[in-house]
């Protein structure tokens, strides 16, 4: 949508911030409102002939839409008052704690998943790269009929039959790099969401 990377960043940060503010609401409501706001900003950009580059025009459009923390506050208040706690302050405390615990667990699991994915990408890339230069030491080896061995660093000479041909190693290396890039992108997005929810 935007050619300028700064404009893409502003757009992403703005809607991550809005999503963070709306996080206590259901996914469907959150999705609907975010989609509506995105469509609205696109309408502003298409209809308002503001001077300046992409970044300036987007900044003007987002300023016109307003600060999500301010204009979304009534919706959150509605959500709380519509589902009043059944057991007074204990119910409210339990609700707050469960929400915080759920969000914390979700972030923890996602972080763990990303770390594992990045580690897998790193291992695959390293093994594939090493097998290109030292095919007798690193790569995927078939030891016997049903035993495989992944030799990553290839510090000593391997036994068995090397299964990775050169082109397979290149493909695996590309896949490993793609996996690392994907996890870095996801981690950055998650971090930005965390920063947005804290700011």
């Amino acid at each position, binding site marked *: 949508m935007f050619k300028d990377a700064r404009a893409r960043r502003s757009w992403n940060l703005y809607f991550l911030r809005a999503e963070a503010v709306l996080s206590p609401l259901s996914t469907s409501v959150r999705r609907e409102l975010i989609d509506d706001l995105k469509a*609205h900003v*696109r309408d502003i950009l298409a*209809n308002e002939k503001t001077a300046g580059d992409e970044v300036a025009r987007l900044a003007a459009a987002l300023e016109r839409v*307003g*600060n999500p923390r*301010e*204009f979304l506050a009534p*919706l959150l208040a509605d959500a709380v008052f519509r589902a009043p706690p059944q057991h007074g302050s204990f119910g409210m405390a339990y609700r707050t704690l469960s929400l915080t615990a759920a969000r914390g667990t979700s972030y923890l699991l996602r972080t763990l998943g990303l770390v594992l994915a990045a580690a897998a990408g790193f291992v695959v890339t390293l093994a594939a790269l090493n097998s290109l230069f030292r095919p007798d030491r690193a790569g995927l080896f078939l030891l016997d009929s049903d035993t495989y061995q992944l030799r990553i660093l290839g510090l000593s000479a391997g036994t068995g039959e090397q299964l990775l041909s050169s082109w397979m190693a290149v493909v695996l290396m590309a896949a490993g790099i793609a996996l690392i890039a994907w996890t870095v992108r996801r981690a950055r997005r998650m971090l930005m969401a965390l920063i947005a929810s804290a700011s």
Partner: protein
Amino acid sequence: MAQDEFLSNWGSQARKGSLELIVMASLAEKEFYGYELVEHLKARCGLTVSDGTLYAILLRLKNEGFVRHRWEHTETGPARKYYSLTKTGQSALEGMRVVWADIARAVERAKNAKERRDV
């Protein structure tokens, strides 16, 4: 300075309080899509609220069952979401108009009380 700030906040609160009525009254006239409704409110009512506020209000009105939407495909761009008032919304709007008229009368009486005393 403190008075200016108070007036600014008070004006903002007063506008927000009446915004739902204004939005519903506009949707009673015809259906609008978001951007069109914002422009309509600015041109017709001179409202200066952030565009995001309007979407929060539309969602709240939808949750109340006062507003519904339909999608319309456009030739030039993405599909547009048109909002209109439901029958429940029309009935609620009538009630809101009555309440608003009461408030306006009360404010008017309070404003005129001092003038009457001065005369």
